[in-house]
């Protein structure tokens, strides 16, 4: 029996992670883990500020970005308030606001059984997902492989990342 072309399954997700805030990282981790749970291959390529989630010194302390985030009203229900209450973006710059938003988000994610970043990376790695760091960004940020968490499978150039993503049924996603 043949499958129509429009029903060809996704075989692999190659996800590029370019942001380093907590809210910038989590969607990619959730999509990668979700792929593995469906039997879809997954690889994560951390570049630019995304490396914040791989560096041992920073990955356990990622913060929600509150400056320039005009959608923070979304977090109001975490405080028992309606999501239509605006959160003035200027308040995001007040010391402690980002830490507080981070605390709230971590608490809510814990309730949903979403692991902290380090454990999440370990989970994805255990499930067969691959974790890569971008060579160019490593050079730019003066990072060495030994500065990164131990589950990193390699430091790749852009070309190597595309090679790694080869194959029909691979989808490349930039986050």
């Amino acid at each position, binding site marked *: 029996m043949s499958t129509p072309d429009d029903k060809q399954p996704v075989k692999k997700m190659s996800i590029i992670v370019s942001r380093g805030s907590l809210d910038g990282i989590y969607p990619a981790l*959730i999509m990668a883990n*979700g792929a593995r*749970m*469906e*039997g879809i291959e997954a690889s994560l390529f951390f570049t630019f500020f995304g490396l914040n989630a791989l560096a041992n010194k920073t990955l356990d302390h990622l913060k929600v970005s509150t400056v320039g985030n005009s959608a923070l009203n979304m977090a109001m229900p975490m405080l028992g308030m309606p999501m239509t209450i605006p959160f003035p973006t200027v308040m995001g710059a007040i010391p402690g606001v980002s830490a507080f938003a981070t605390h709230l988000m971590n608490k809510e994610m814990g309730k949903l*059984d*979403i692991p902290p970043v380090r454990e999440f990376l370990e*989970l994805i790695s*255990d*499930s067969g997902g691959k974790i890569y760091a971008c060579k160019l960004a490593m050079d730019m940020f003066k990072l060495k492989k030994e500065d990164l968490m131990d589950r990193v499978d390699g430091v790749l150039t852009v070309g190597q990342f595309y090679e790694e993503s080869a194959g029909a049924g691979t989808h490349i996603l930039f986050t």
Partner: protein
Amino acid sequence: MNKTIAGTEVNVNEEGYLTNASQWNEAIATAIAAEEGIGALTEAHMKVVRYLREQQAKGAALTIRSMGKSGVVTTKELYDLFPGGPLKKSSKIAGIPKPVGCI
């Protein structure tokens, strides 16, 4: 709808998950495992299946994270035992509903 699995008539949904966990038995598990391409069920598979059924009976939400922390199986082992969908396939074999979470 009804389906006969391993000689027993059971209620299943459109994806083939049992809708009544009490209709399950080990012969049904074996038949579903074969259908899902898992092959013969070993004691390691059955440990996972029994744990899933216990958790389901308690009303616990099943996630890949909670399975890895259960002490019954590691994440790696779970992926090796049920390739192509560790939680989905093990749940189907265990005769419990398809997990609805994203984690």
